[in-house]
């Protein structure tokens, strides 16, 4: 019977644990807290050790440079997984109340999800709010929720049109300036060579939200506990009108993005364009070597010919509430994204968020041999200034992205109008939000 006594004891322990965590941290409405950078400077002087979770490849060089500059600070660099894997671990550590890092990389789309329940430190208390003028408007607004500042932006992804010049020249297609021209180009290319496609898309939540963003849509807005969702606003309608024609006309490659086959199709000319974030050149250069010299960059097509862009991807560094030395963690974040950490980041091919770096002549005028000597940053920096204003992600965007496949993905699969999928997506998101304590209204 020893077994049963033992397991009753464990059961009691388990239940106690369940109750303890069940009554865990409720969300707090963060009041605006302002302070100065003095405590950060003091922490830096005092030294200590912090843990930093990131999957960005430039981190190694950055940490080495930081430790050289501040020998009394030890940064324990941990790659806890890419994107979703890291968030799972972060979520678990937050729920367990310990085991998380001091500083963590979080993508802009995921930031509200961790900020809102009160898991991140408001950096206004260290006076970082003063840095606002140094960042592009879109990245700064991505790290602010309400009046609070939950991180400093590192990379950004203003969107542009990457196109395979070889394909365009061969079939005499002009580089599209509007989405109508883009549609024509898609038809012309596929007719000329049925193995080629204007781009690949199998339904991707990050791409979809960015496209709605560019079209002027504001499908999500959050004010405290109140959330509004409208995935059928004018922006969404503008985008689906174009994209439905591409999907239903079978003008898109159905290869899954980021798969080995996708990289292959980028290299061999099967995929003729990519509408994506400004971080893409780094990926091209390291991983699509077969495409070297063939690709070029142009502004993202628009609906009326006037330049407008949106952000796609990009991430910030935040300080976790769990941190036992938040001031030192904040000091590291400041160094990373508002100090000497930016240089090694750019050197490794990153696309920064700070306007001074984006507009420096060295950055703007660099001729890139991969793109046939084109000064691609001219186009990309211009895009960062043209990002449509007023966008925000859902406070549960990671969940939304996961169930995207069940709803909008189904439209892609069945070849039905994307609007129908967006409607189903919205319905699921309204239900979920209401269950999690928000008051969600569909607009």
């Amino acid at each position, binding site marked *: 019977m020893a077994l049963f006594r033992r397991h009753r004891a464990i059961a009691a322990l*388990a239940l106690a644990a369940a109750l303890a965590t*069940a009554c865990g941290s409720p969300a707090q409405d963060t009041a605006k807290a302002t302070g100065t950078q003095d405590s950060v400077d003091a922490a830096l002087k005092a030294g200590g050790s912090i843990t930093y979770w990131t999957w960005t490849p430039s981190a190694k060089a950055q940490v080495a440079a930081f430790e050289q500059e501040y020998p009394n600070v030890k940064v324990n660099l941990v790659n806890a997984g890419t994107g979703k894997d890291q968030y799972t671990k972060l979520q678990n550590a937050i729920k367990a109340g310990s085991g998380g890092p001091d500083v963590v990389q979080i993508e802009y789309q995921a930031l509200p999800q961790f900020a809102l329940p009160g898991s991140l430190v408001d950096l206004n208390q260290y006076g970082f709010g003063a840095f606002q003028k140094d960042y592009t408007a879109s990245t700064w607004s991505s790290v602010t929720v309400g009046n609070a500042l939950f991180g400093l932006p590192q990379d950004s992804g203003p969107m542009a049109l990457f196109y395979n010049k070889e394909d365009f020249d061969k079939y005499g297609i002009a580089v599209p300036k509007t989405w109508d021209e883009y549609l024509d180009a898609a038809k012309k290319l596929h007719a000329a060579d049925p193995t080629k496609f204007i781009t690949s898309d199998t339904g991707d939540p990050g791409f979809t939200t960015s496209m709605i963003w560019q079209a002027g849509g504001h499908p999500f807005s959050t004010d405290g506990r109140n959330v509004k969702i409208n995935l059928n606003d004018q922006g969404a309608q503008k985008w689906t009108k174009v994209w439905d024609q591409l999907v239903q006309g079978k003008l898109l490659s159905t290869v899954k993005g980021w798969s080995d086959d996708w990289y292959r199709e980028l290299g061999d000319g099967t995929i003729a364009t990519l509408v994506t974030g400004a971080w893409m050149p780094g990926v091209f250069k390291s991983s699509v070597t077969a495409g070297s010299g063939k690709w070029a960059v142009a502004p993202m097509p628009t609906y009326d010919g006037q330049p407008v862009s949106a952000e796609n991807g990009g991430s910030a560094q935040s300080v976790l509430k769990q941190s036992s030395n938040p001031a030192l963690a904040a000091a590291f974040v400041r160094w990373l994204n508002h100090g000497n950490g930016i240089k090694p980041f750019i050197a490794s091919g990153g696309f920064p968020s700070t306007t001074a770096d984006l507009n420096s002549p060295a950055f703007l005028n660099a001729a890139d041999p991969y793109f046939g000597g084109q000064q691609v940053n001219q186009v990309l920096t211009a895009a960062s200034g043209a990002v449509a204003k007023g966008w925000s992600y859902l406070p549960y965007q990671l969940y939304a992205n996961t169930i995207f496949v069940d709803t909008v993905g189904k439209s892609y699969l069945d070849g039905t109008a994307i609007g129908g999928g967006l409607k189903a997506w919205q319905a699921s998101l309204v239900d979920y939000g209401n269950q999690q304590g928000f008051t969600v209204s569909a607009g």
Partner: protein
Amino acid sequence: MTSTVGPPRIRVGAVRARGRRGWIFVAPFAVVFALTFLAPLVYAFGLSLFRDQAFFGGTVFVGLGNYTQALADANFWDAFLRVLLFLAVQVPIMLLMALIAAFAIDSARLHAAGFFRMVIFLPYAVPGVVAVLMWGFIYGDHFGLAADLNHLLGQDAVQPLSANWILTSIGNIVTWEFVGYNMLIFYSALKVVPPDQIEAAAIDGAGTLRTIVSVKLPAIRGAIVVATIFSIIGSFQLFNEPNILRSLAPNVITTYFTPNMYAYNLSFAGQQYNYSATVAIVMGVITAIIAYAVQLRGQRKER
């Protein structure tokens, strides 16, 4: 029986006392099992009685509220029926293939039996990450073998990653992985069949097939029952293979494709730990009932 000392009479009480010593052998397993399986399970059961809001509001005791919700959840039943269909078709095929392979290798009529034994087992050793890349190559209708096959046949005849084919494609991967696994269970069970029984059949003039049917098959019934039970549990918990194919077959595999994927996504994507635990427990109860029924049936036949 070479003992020179006469056997003492053993009292019934002594037998029972000795029986209790069986716990010496079971206890270490039981303790670790309690820590790693039972404690989380009890914890999960506790969770299933509450409803916790991930962002605002707190935890509410809802009794069996989550259970009534699960039983009326269309997504859950959609997933359940899918794995039921999968189980009904795939498990018999896989176990039959494994049995045939085990008998063939055990029969001593096969050239290079040791080689066969190892190669057939090998797929079980392939890690999941690689399985994605491998099956991406086999199933790919852009550059893969499926593309080559379609090229040969003319038009898109084979589309392993399309909605109509996907369950078959998953079944194929599971079969590929687990035939060798089950084959080894049967094979090692055949190895512990007392040889005198087989000799006796040989003396009676039974051929290979008759020996299999009348001696070997009954002798490994226990192993067949265990393999069946574990295959049933495995099918009900189907997760890895569809999850792997998700990265190849966009949109075809929903977040509630199988009950286990549903529970996983509720928990990891939606932070709906309470409801996720409920779905897992409901699924566990159904699975245990079916597995237990198979076990009882297997035992009855043995008698």
